[in-house]
């Protein structure tokens, strides 16, 4: 199951909440303001490193570019909108808001 997260981890509880529910191996895709979670060296780096040990982590490239986020935590893959579609084709979707 693909989990999408669209909120900044700083201003909402979506990130904290989602990671309590996804199953090991479930891919997680950060979109919109959610992409701030994968910026290298922020307050959530350790939590994200934990997620990366059990789950594949993606971030939507156009959203990263829009926010000027270029240094990503190690292990995070980027996808464009077509890559987003591919992930949706491979998995059922859980769109966290």
């Amino acid at each position, binding site marked *: *199951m693909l989990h999408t997260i669209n909120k900044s981890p700083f201003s909402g*509880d979506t990130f904290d*909440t989602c990671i*309590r*529910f*996804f*199953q090991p191996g*479930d891919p997680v895709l950060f979109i919109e303001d959610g992409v701030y979670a994968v910026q290298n060296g922020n307050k959530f780096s350790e939590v994200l490193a934990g997620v990366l040990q059990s789950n594949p982590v993606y971030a939507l490239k156009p959203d990263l570019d829009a926010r000027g986020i270029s240094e990503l935590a190690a292990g995070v893959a980027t996808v464009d909108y077509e890559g987003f579609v591919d992930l949706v084709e491979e998995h*059922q*979707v*859980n*769109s*966290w*808001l």
Partner: protein
Amino acid sequence: MHVMRHAPHGTIYTYEGLEMILIMAAYEQDLSVVFIGDGIYSLKKNQDTAGIGIKGFAKTFMALDGYDVEKLYVDRISLEERGLSEDDLVVDVEVVESSRIGELMKEQDVIIHH
């Protein structure tokens, strides 16, 4: 599966979410409703919305019983963090661990967050 994540009244998401659930249940869809985070506040007993001029709807959750809504699940941690227990809620629910809800989510074809 419908996931309630917002407190009632401050925003309309839970109320309009409930409207959606009632319609979908009437179409005899098997469905479950999960309350996570502030979503559990919508089940709090003794809500009296007269003073804010907004229609209350906590009791409508009781009506779900009459439909094919299989189960109402409440996330245990969310309940505990808020200093609430099952006795504080207007309907019978199953209080479960996050991991159990996670497993249930994984079995779903469709999940809608409200």
